[in-house]
């Protein structure tokens, strides 16, 4: 989103420390005001519709929203389930797509951890996903250090539990909506992810990886096989990195 939402989260100057629960609720309020949250929930409504389409059980889908909390990884699980891919192949694909959480979590944790212990940080890291990351980077630097962890937990818990609710809503909507609207809900997932990838693309390597990943998909579909996503990631991402590195070396 180009314009920052007015969250009311900026504290008045030189106030004494407020209780953590106050900051948790301010985080929740920031989530409610967030356009990012609307897109996120729309994506999970689409996810709910998709799982019904492919016959994935609702309970397992809700569990995936809570315990995986990464829509691309959840799509890999559901897609792999529908295609009958072997479980180790699905786990490998999920692991590769979730590698991105390493830099995402590592870049945000020093900002939000404050004086919290390792256990709290490990707990908080589970709630880091692209949406909470984007909003935290935007909102949290303005907050006093002691307030950041409770604020983050409020924001990210609102996103996660809201997504659980919208996963269920999407599942039941998919059965009752007119066919065209149901198609639209399922289509929310690819379009919102594509646009968020575009928005997150900051340099040439990001753009090349995105374009090569899209372009290689129909190529590898010719060969079929359950490993094609891994090849797309390895070849597309590897080529994007190599080209970016060569251009940097020349500059």
């Amino acid at each position, binding site marked *: *989103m180009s314009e920052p939402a007015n969250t009311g989260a900026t504290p008045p100057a030189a106030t004494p420390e407020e209780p953590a629960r106050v900051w948790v609720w301010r985080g929740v309020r920031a989530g409610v005001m967030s*356009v990012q949250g609307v*897109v996120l929930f*729309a994506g999970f409504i689409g996810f709910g519709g998709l799982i019904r*389409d492919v016959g994935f059980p609702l*309970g*397992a889908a809700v*569990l995936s929203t809570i*315990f995986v909390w990464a829509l*691309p*990884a959840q*799509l*890999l*699980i559901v*897609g792999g389930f*529908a295609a009958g891919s072997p479980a*180790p192949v699905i*786990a490998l694909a*999920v*692991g*590769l*797509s*979730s*590698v*991105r*959480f390493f*830099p995402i*979590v*590592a870049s945000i*944790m020093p900002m939000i*951890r404050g004086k919290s212990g390792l256990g709290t*940080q490990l707990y908080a*890291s589970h709630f880091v996903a692209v949406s909470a990351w984007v909003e935290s980077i935007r909102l949290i630097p303005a907050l006093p250090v002691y307030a950041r962890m409770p604020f983050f937990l409020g924001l990210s818990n609102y996103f996660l539990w809201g997504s659980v609710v919208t996963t269920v809503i999407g599942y039941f909507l998919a059965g009752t909506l007119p*066919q*065209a609207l*149901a*198609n*639209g809900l*399922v289509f929310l997932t*690819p379009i*919102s*992810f*594509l646009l*968020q990838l575009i928005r997150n693309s900051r340099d040439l*390597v*990001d753009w090349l*990886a*995105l374009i090569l*990943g899209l372009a*290689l*998909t129909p190529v590898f*579909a010719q060969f079929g096989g359950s490993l*094609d*996503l891994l090849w*797309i*990631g390895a070849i597309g*991402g590897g080529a*994007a*990195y190599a080209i*970016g590195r060569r251009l940097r070396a020349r500059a």
Partner: protein
Amino acid sequence: MSLSDPMLYAYLLVILAGFLPTDVFRFAAVLFARRLDEDSEVLILVRAVATALLAGVIARLVLFPTGDLAGVPLWIRLASIAAGVAGYFLIRKSVLAGVIAAEIVIVGGAIYFR
């Protein structure tokens, strides 16, 4: 229920092939956060691989959809993507604007052309 039960299998997939391979990276990142250089070469490569892989997921959902979406003609799905990207760039790089533009095309197309 046995392991061959597809419903139980789905739950096991979520935990073993979903939760574990995802949170291992979240937890590892916390442990290494103090020492990690965000601009290190390895992380540039890793992020590029992850981006390409995610782009592959998106392209598969659009080009080879499972379920009911497959009944919507391919050209409508591609036109919807084009409208979404155009909406995003034309309307203040707003993801919401792009999503709405894409949805108008896919829902309208599904009504009139399927």
